């Protein structure tokens, strides 16, 4: 993991800062350590690096000039939104410019008839629903960090949330992304229509972790708020039974508005923190939500209760009113900070697995807890198979940190082995770059690099993130021998 010791080339720093000062005001170009320190990491605090220069443009024209200046000087650029990302996607360049979009905080337009909002990338996720609320509309994707994370970052990571089984991810809820290539050319991906001619460059841009273009404006879809919503909290005396209950709900033809699981270590951590009213004696709890018209919700809640009882739920509580529903969710949404209170540090993983493998993967995580001597509560977007195991550790103990990394790597590789993926919604960033070598072969990585070159021939935009160099994978393969076949068979190994 990165060190906080500055290794800045001062001449280069001066040149770049001066070039940016030609069109940016003094307060918008930071280079002194006390000013750049707050930008040394994002939500993945284990990785830190001081940026050489931080640029804080306020207009699209300034963004364009930052990019043109940097690309002509061959300077790397790392875009940053609210800095809540969990994979180190906004880890700054020690030899380049951290481009913060934090000043792009304007809601440009809300059109209730068209059901869209046009917002700048620094607008917070939750703020979009706030401005849409007077029209009975909302923005559906709701990552747990929604009070802090910005829509530009959501676009970069294709963020999900607890309601995405029914309402989709960022890619399903964004109509248009406006931005600039590293060379400063304006691009519009998508439109207010439901499709655009040619390749789906909008889909390619979403989840591209800031490697293809810098987002300066986003048009999102707004949905009508459901008339009502209620959530069931179901307790199980066995984690596997809870997993089977998830499958039973879906087999009954129900797509709940939200379907979340937490194991006992997670509910206990949360309950101390927010008093959500969770059953802390249950081995696992499920939160199963229904939304729609009152009649529809009554019908669905009755059906879900029946299915959950049949699946062996030991206790069922249905939210009686909106306050109770929000209280049940508050625990889930506060799971990460709650875990943060019972341990000096925690490391959040983000694998997705086929739901039927939940028992197998949780048993595997249990075995890893013993192997590495570290605890690991689990929260789980059960409906879509997205696991967030949280390894508890102390970052001040270098040896523990190392064990944590190995623990996490083994779990992610297990996710791939059962047919899943190393990241469901947090992105690869710098964190999972080695595991990309496990998930993809050299040919696929070759395509990713070719896609990158199509947008950014010099490789200046967010370099070193998301897609590993083939040489890195060869090195990783040498360090890390798998039982399975080598994923990069075609690559020379010396």
């Amino acid at each position, binding site marked *: 993991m990165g060190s906080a010791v500055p290794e800045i080339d001062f001449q280069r720093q001066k040149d770049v800062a001066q070039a940016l000062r030609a069109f940016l005001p003094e307060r918008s170009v930071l280079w002194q350590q006390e000013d750049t320190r707050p930008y040394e990491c994002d939500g993945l605090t284990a990785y830190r690096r001081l940026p050489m220069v931080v640029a804080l443009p306020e207009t699209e024209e300034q963004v364009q000039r930052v990019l043109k200046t940097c690309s002509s000087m061959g300077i790397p650029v790392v875009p940053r939104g609210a800095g809540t990302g969990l994979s180190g996607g906004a880890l700054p360049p020690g030899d380049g410019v951290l481009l913060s979009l934090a000043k792009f905080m304007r809601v440009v337009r809300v059109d209730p008839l068209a059901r869209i909002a046009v917002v700048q990338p620094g607008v917070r996720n939750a703020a979009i629903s706030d401005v849409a609320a007077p029209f009975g509309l909302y923005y559906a994707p709701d990552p747990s960090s929604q009070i802090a994370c910005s829509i530009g970052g959501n676009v970069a990571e294709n963020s999900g949330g607890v309601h995405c089984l029914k309402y989709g991810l960022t890619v399903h809820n964004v109509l248009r992304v406006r931005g600039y290539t590293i060379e400063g050319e304006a691009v519009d991906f998508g439109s*207010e229509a439901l499709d*655009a001619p*040619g390749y789906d460059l909008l889909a390619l841009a979403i989840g591209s972790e800031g490697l293809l273009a810098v987002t300066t404006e986003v048009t999102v879809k707004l949905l009508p708020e459901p008339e009502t919503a209620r959530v069931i909290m179901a307790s199980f005396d066995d984690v596997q039974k809870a997993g089977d209950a998830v499958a039973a709900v879906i087999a009954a033809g129900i797509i709940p508005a939200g379907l979340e699981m937490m194991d006992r270590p997670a509910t206990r951590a949360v309950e101390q923190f927010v008093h959500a009213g969770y059953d802390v004696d249950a081995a696992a709890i499920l939160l199963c939500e229904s939304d729609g018209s009152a009649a529809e919700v009554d*019908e669905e809640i009755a059906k879900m209760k029946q299915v959950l009882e049949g699946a062996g739920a030991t206790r069922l509580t249905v939210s009686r009113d909106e306050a109770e529903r929000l209280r049940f969710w508050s625990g889930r949404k506060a799971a990460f900070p709650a875990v943060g209170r019972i341990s000096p540090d925690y490391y959040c993983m983000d694998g997705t697995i086929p739901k039927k493998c939940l028992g197998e993967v949780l048993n595997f995580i249990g075995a890893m807890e013993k192997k590495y001597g570290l605890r690991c509560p689990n929260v789980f977007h059960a409906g879509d198979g997205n696991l967030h195991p949280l390894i508890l550790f102390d970052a001040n103990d270098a040896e523990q940190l190392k064990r944590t990394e190995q623990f996490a790597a083994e779990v992610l590789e297990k996710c791939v082995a059962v047919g899943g993926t190393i*990241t469901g919604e947090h992105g690869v960033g710098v964190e999972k770059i080695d595991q990309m070598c496990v998930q993809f072969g050299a040919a696929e990585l070759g395509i990713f690099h070719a896609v990158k070159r199509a947008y950014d021939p010099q490789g200046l935009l967010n370099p070193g993130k998301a897609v590993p160099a083939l040489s890195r994978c060869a090195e990783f393969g040498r360090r890390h021998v798998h039982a399975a076949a080598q994923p990069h068979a075609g690559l020379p190994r010396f």
Partner: protein
Amino acid sequence: MRIRGGGTKDFYGNAPRGELLETRGHAGIVAYEPTELVVTARCGTLLSDLHEVLFKQGQFLPFEPPSFGSGATLGGCVAAGLSGPRRASAGSVRDFILGAKIIDGKGDLLSFGGQVMKNVAGYDISRLLTGSLGTLGLITEVSLKVLPRPSAELTLKLELPQGKALESLNRWAGQPLPISGSAWSDGELALRLSGAGSALELAAQKLGGEKLGAGDAATFWAGIREQTDPFFAGDAPLWRLSLPSHAAQVELPGAQLIEWGGALRWLRSHADPAPVRAAVAGLGGHATLFRAADKPAGAFAPLPPVLARLHRKLKSAFDPAGILNAGRLYPEF
């Protein structure tokens, strides 16, 4: 090479050229577990076979793809990227694709995405392939998210002039109403509602109009989806106008049929391509010459220069020699 499944969409895009490469033989469902909400099948799998297998488990493809003939294959469905009447409420083909295996222009077998619902490892190549008309690779296998079929459906017909229909459709879409399909033509608006029975009755009371019998409703929506409705009969060129749903009435000569809550407008017209494209672009959309005896002005709206350059570079990333479905999407590649 020109890649072809069932050949039911040979009319779509620019004229196919090159050696024929048939994919129908590579068929079959590879994996389907209803509780995972994921199906994986080979490109030559008939859409009709896939529908039947899903139907037996109470599930379906929510984007309701058109077949345009009994031979339609899954590979063709994804390569064409066309969705049916449910698109405005449920999403499009690209919204449901989870993973794809392809053979690129260099002959490499590649695998992107996967069989899980959330996956942000690497660029989202599976969605990029959707609608690429086989120009980036031969799609050999696809994983799709599937959903339970709605427990009930109901179709209403209302008399409304076009302007009023467009305004109403947009207003209704901002309310929690279970509208899953809309089709307006010649002063008559059909609305399909899907969901729990109790919710449909309430919504029907609110919306008004006359209920259509279940059999008639199924025939009507199949006619819209498959373009066997009388609106689509005849020889006049058929334009597909993709617009913001709230865009004003399109003032062009010829008859129109409006779907997707206003976001898709079909135009039967002999008008010259240039004014059609200009009028639609002026309203924030794009016009595709969908069916016509010939398409000298190209099937698809021209791209702005920067996007055109990105297209060419992406094409050469997947197919450096330019051997796959050359010219099918745009003449220059």
